[in-house]
């Protein structure tokens, strides 16, 4: 039983394990006769590199499920594991892109993209460089200093995507982040997201 061997086996196991596993997870809001079962027991697994879609009618619990995986909510029953460990709270390694962009209106596009990097303690010059590169990649070169209110709906969503990509998450959870933009913009942004995904789970390798 030497340490090297153990570590090698652990990493082999990690590769075989699913990145996300949801096991009979359920969430009910409220109690008694007025309780709302937002999410019935559900199970699935997602492996690293996979693009996994959850489809269902409005109100069926999609956002609730994503909240569980992102760590904003805890399941009442069952388990939610990411990287083999139970989810205890939010973590920048599994980021949730919201239905609404939630950009900070007092910050420029660049400063919005820098937010996660600030919280991670990345030095200012590096932050700036990285934010500029990502905005460029998202087709927002020249809009670094624009405030969110000066941007179109689709551009705002691209800023919020850039903000998420900036921290290089292992898992990007998307709760219909394109729900509020028009059909054409949505198609284009979906293409952009697929391209980013195909370039690997680490779009930061530019």
């Amino acid at each position, binding site marked *: 039983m030497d340490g090297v061997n153990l570590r090698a086996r652990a990493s082999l196991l990690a590769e075989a394990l699913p990145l996300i596993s949801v096991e009979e997870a359920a969430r009910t809001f409220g109690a008694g006769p007025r309780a709302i079962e937002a999410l019935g027991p559900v199970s699935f697994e997602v492996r690293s590199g996979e693009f996994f879609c959850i489809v269902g009618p409005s109100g069926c619990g999609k956002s609730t499920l994503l909240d569980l995986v*992102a760590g*904003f909510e805890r399941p009442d029953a069952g388990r939610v594991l990411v990287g083999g460990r139970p989810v205890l709270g*939010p*973590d*920048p390694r599994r*980021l*949730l892109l*919201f239905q*609404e962009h*939630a950009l*900070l*209106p*007092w910050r420029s596009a660049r400063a919005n993209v820098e*937010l*996660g990097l*600030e*919280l*991670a303690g990345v030095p200012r010059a590096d932050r700036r460089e990285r934010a500029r590169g990502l905005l460029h990649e998202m087709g927002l070169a020249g809009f670094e200093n624009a*405030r969110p209110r000066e941007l179109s709906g689709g551009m705002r969503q691209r800023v919020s995507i850039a903000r998420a990509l900036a*921290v290089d998450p292992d898992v990007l959870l998307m709760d219909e982040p394109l729900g509020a933009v028009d059909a054409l913009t949505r198609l284009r942004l979906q293409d952009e997201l697929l391209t980013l995904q195909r370039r690997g789970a680490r779009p930061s390798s530019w």
Partner: protein
Amino acid sequence: MSGLKSSRSEGAARRFLLRIAGIALFLAAWQAATSFELLGPVFGPAFGPGAGGRALLAMARSGVLFEQTEASLGRFGLGLLLAVVIGGPLGFIVGYFRSLEELTTVVFQILRMTSPLALVPIALIAFGVGSRPVVFLIAYAAVWPVVLSTAHGVSRVSPAWKRMVRGFGARDGSVLRKVIVPAALPELVQGIRLAVGVGWIVLVPAEMLGVDSGLGYQILDSRDRFAYDELVATILVIGLLGLALDLVLRRLKELVSWTA
């Protein structure tokens, strides 16, 4: 585009002219009322803007004007500073904890609506005669708008923003620094603007309580000397300084505002 621009600057010029005209009309009506003693023989030309303006120049030349203004601005600034230093953080705390807001709201509303002048005897007992009770009364008047406006701003911060920064790994301290403080800053400044208004109004009567300097004192002193032109001059100074203070705060508010 250029048409739009020129019509906009035309609008600005028009607004400016209308404002100047408003001032001119007011001065003319005032001068007429005193020259023709329309408000009775007591209010003769000595109470008019002409006499007041001349007295203002004389007071400026003798230095009295600046001495009294300096004394008043010193007390006002100190009272306002106390109000902001105490009211700002208090507003953040009250706005942040919902139950604290409920706990304090009725009491704060009552205290806010209690005229500081009702507290004069208490202020004199507590602080003695001099500048200190004056500063206290200004701070008392000014602290409530700061507290209430800031608390309101903090309680209205979008939960979506807080959730978003938590998603990026922010703890309470970072949520405060990155979201709550910048989001509530415009309402803090709005509170300070209201505080300047009410504090400036309280300053004058507060300076009528046993201090021997300041614009409030100057009002009583000119009355006692029957120097009605100086009385008018002092009233003018109080109004103009109040206007200037409000303009500064309005500018500051525009600087920190992130809406519209």
